[in-house]
């Protein structure tokens, strides 16, 4: 038995010390001492996404853009307070009465990180490249598609002409690149150019880049917007989110992004950690095949025609228990979904009020019964000899959508609809949708403050293009097509303020009633950070619970944060850091620690039990070997 004890001890050598029930007393003061020390003025952000590349024409994930926005400037930003266009490289702008000519005044005295002065020539160069280059155009299309010409008419003035009035010209989210570097990158090499030492005009400069691991950036001391309050920012990639949460807990990182809800929840009460349950413009929906067809109206695909019947869609909408999804899948970090512009955009969000599709399976069944769908063998409804059997496609890349899938299947089956679930990757699903070969799927959108794009997704012109089985998908993944809706869309494009909001709400109301999507929920962006080490975040919008980092293609916090204990004057003069809501929350009280502490003891116990069981079993089984062993000895 001694052998077993030894084996047990070996396995659990330092286990108890690390996994004990109560947090150590020192933890209550300033967070558990980080073993992996990094400088106090180094701000480390953890994410499960890594930075794929430093070339702004190639990167496409949110993490990539987070870095580009720190290294490069744009002409303007989404404002920190309320998303209104905020001057960045463009100090002011104006347009001609017909809206076809826009003039921008470029900031004076800005220098590139290699010392070369930045002028309007760089701006013109960048935009011209974006308009004419293949890959560049595809990459920036939503901002530049109407621009016909860009000219630098002075050292600090740029004039752009557009083919038709384009309100979005005051929010051109395009990285301005240095002409003297990029003119040496020929068109044929633009997507393969590594750009490993980016020359930018932004508040930070890349010092080290390890693909798939981390990016180190140092503060740009000569930044026109003021020197950042932290000396260094590091983005560290984690291959699994559990490690990321642990790293925040033990101080190896200072900010955790993209944590799954359970891990985020477990950080509650962790010493030195503050949670930020940030409202964001995201939602997931259950999308229907409303009658897939090309832009010319030609029907495509093998979608179940039953979904063209609005009663079926309504019945499904009544069968969904959205609050339960919010409770289970989002752990409460979100809200039930209704219209396609999320509630964070107060002026545009449409609230259906009493007409909402609340969870009511009885009503759902009623609707189907009245529609002629009688319950047949196996509990599946039948009409005109056809079973109501629908395919449901889920993206295997999304853990939340994967978790929601069995709920949806369950609810639909409860009202008599047979559901066949399949998992596939994003690429496949995009093509399947484009071909119209689906019935239902779950996906999501991140809605920008300007609702134009999101609204355009439901226009007739966004349906697939092509013929003879070869289709190129548009942005429409519902194939909704309604002349009235299209008219309203054109109308709101040339409106502003309250008038525009009214039309947008009308559009949402129509969409809600016609039900091409059954929105599941709006999900928040759960962020957690070490409030005992850094302070001065600039939330967007400027309310408690605004996004701290990974904002709407804006980068306010990076310039405004500073280590705890430093003077606010370090960053109070920086551009955009005047209206901070003062998020200097005290470190969380060191109460009973995270949810897992109680079961760590069981972890150890289980391991010991396992080893003892097995070891004991083997000892019993090997008694007979003594006979053989005796033979060996001389």
């Amino acid at each position, binding site marked *: 038995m001694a052998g077993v004890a030894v084996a047990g001890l070996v396995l659990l050598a330092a286990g108890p010390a690390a996994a004990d029930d109560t947090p150590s007393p020192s933890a209550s003061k300033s967070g558990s001492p980080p073993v992996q020390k990094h400088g106090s003025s180094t701000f480390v952000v953890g994410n499960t996404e890594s930075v794929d590349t430093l070339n702004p024409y190639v990167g496409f994930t949110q993490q990539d853009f987070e870095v580009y926005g720190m290294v490069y400037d744009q002409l303007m930003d989404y404002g920190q307070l309320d998303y209104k266009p905020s001057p960045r490289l463009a100090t002011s702008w104006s347009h001609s009465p017909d809206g076809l000519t826009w003039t921008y005044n470029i900031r004076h005295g800005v220098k590139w990180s290699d010392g070369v002065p930045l002028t309007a020539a760089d701006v013109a160069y960048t935009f011209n490249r974006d308009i004419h280059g293949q890959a560049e155009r595809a990459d920036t299309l939503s901002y530049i598609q109407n621009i016909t010409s860009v000219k630098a008419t002075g050292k600090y003035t740029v004039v752009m002409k557009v083919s038709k009035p384009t309100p979005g010209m005051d929010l051109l989210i395009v990285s301005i690149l240095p002409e003297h570097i990029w003119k040496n990158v020929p068109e044929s090499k633009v997507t393969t150019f590594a750009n490993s030492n980016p020359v930018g005009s932004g508040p930070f400069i890349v010092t080290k880049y390890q693909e798939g691991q981390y990016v180190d950036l140092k503060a740009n001391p000569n930044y026109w917007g003021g020197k950042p309050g932290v000396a260094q920012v590091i983005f560290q990639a984690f291959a699994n989110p559990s490690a990321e949460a642990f790293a925040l807990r033990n101080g190896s990182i200072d900010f955790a992004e993209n944590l799954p809800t*359970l891990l985020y929840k477990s950080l509650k009460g962790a010493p030195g950690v503050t949670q930020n349950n940030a409202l964001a413009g995201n939602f997931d929906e259950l999308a229907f095949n409303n009658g897939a067809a090309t832009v010319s109206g030609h029907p495509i695909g093998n979608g179940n025609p039953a979904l063209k019947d609005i009663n079926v869609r309504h019945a499904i909408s009544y069968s969904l228990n959205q609050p339960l999804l919010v409770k289970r899948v989002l752990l409460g970090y979100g809200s039930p979904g209704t219209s396609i512009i999320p509630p964070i955009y107060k002026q545009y969000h449409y609230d259906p009020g009493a007409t909402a599709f609340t969870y009511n399976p009885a009503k759902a069944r009623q609707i189907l019964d009245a529609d002629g769908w009688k319950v047949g063998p196996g509990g599946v409804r039948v009409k005109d000899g056809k079973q109501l059997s629908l395919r449901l496609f889920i993206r295997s890349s999304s853990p939340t959508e994967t978790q929601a899938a069995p709920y949806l299947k369950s609810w639909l089956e409860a009202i008599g609809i047979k559901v066949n679930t399949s998992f596939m990757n994003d690429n496949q699903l995009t093509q399947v949708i484009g071909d119209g070969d689906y019935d239902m799927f779950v996906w999501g959108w991140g809605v920008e403050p300007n609702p134009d794009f999101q609204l355009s997704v439901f226009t007739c012109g966004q349906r697939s293009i092509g013929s003879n089985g070869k289709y190129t998908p548009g942005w429409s993944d519902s194939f909704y097509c309604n002349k009235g809706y299209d008219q309203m869309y054109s109308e709101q494009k040339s409106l502003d303020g309250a008038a525009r909001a009214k039309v947008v709400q009308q559009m949402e109301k129509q969409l809600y009633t016609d039900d091409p999507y059954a929105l599941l929920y709006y999900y928040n962006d759960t962020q957690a950070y070490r409030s005992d080490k850094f302070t001065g975040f600039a939330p967007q919008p400027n309310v408690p619970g605004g996004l701290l980092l990974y904002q709407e293609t804006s980068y306010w916090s990076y310039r405004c944060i500073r280590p705890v204990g430093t003077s606010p004057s370090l960053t109070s003069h920086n551009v955009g850091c005047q209206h901070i809501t003062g998020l200097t929350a005290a470190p969380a009280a060191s109460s009973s620690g995270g949810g897992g502490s109680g079961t760590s003891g069981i972890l150890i116990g289980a391991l010991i039990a396992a080893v003892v069981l*097995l070891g004991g079993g083997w000892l019993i089984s090997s008694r007979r070997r003594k006979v053989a062993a005796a033979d060996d000895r001389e």
Partner: protein
Amino acid sequence: MTAPPATAPAPAPPSARQLSWARRRRALAAFWREYRKDRSGVAGLIFLIVLVILALAAPLLASSRGLSAALSTNPANAGPGWHYPLGTDADGRSVLTELIWGARISLLIGFTATLLCIVIGAVVGIVAGHYGKVTDNLLMRVTDWFLVVPFLPLAIVLAKTLGPSLGVIIFVIGITSWPGTARIIRAQAMAVETRPYLERSRALGAGHTHQMIRHVLPNVMPLLLANTILTVAGTILAETTLSFLGLGDPLRPSWGEMLNQAFFTGGGSAGNQIWLIAPGIAIILVVLSFTMVGHALESALDPKLRERR
């Protein structure tokens, strides 16, 4: 000298069938005696029988309602409680219920993948061993290729292109595991080929198929059986790895799928750690049992292998 007492008429001589059954029974008894000597093999066998009973009795032990995320009323990711002795998962389902039902999935995958593997391996091995020369060479080429190609990358690549589902996992594991079996069976088949009764049956005009099925196969069976059991251990571990990497079927929680969800949702690492520990221990115990039974079988069947225990 007295006449022998009147007795019942002498029993008819046993028929050929009765003789062969008697012989089989004796062989089985002898086999069992030999098998029993390996205590760990017996322990493993008992555990496996209990496991199979548990898996079959799953509906009686834990209502399948407990597997429905939408219907569960327990708190999510909780520690052990009265209705859920091993705690709950991210949807509030009892980990114990999932463990019991997961046994079904894991065993199903293990057995079916092994079946596929054994069938292919046995066919390839027997055909190669029987026909020899060119056929043998060709088949061994293909076998070598599968043997040499590393299992996990091949499995990943296949599963990725075929999509995540139970059937694909079974298929992928099956077609990546058969080479080991094929080689062992081929060697054994080649030995059997040299035996006299095979020569005799050929002389009597037996066709190839007849020889392979009626003569080679039965003699290869014992080794095949032992190999099968060992392969199941391997396939269960393989399924665990594939599910962990996200290639499993999320709607049917096998033990590997439970581990995947426990780790990547963080519920098993930061919340109810039993959710992470329990499937792991279950896998260890099951794989150990199969391994021990397999080795015991080998010892009982092949005297030379007994020395190793």
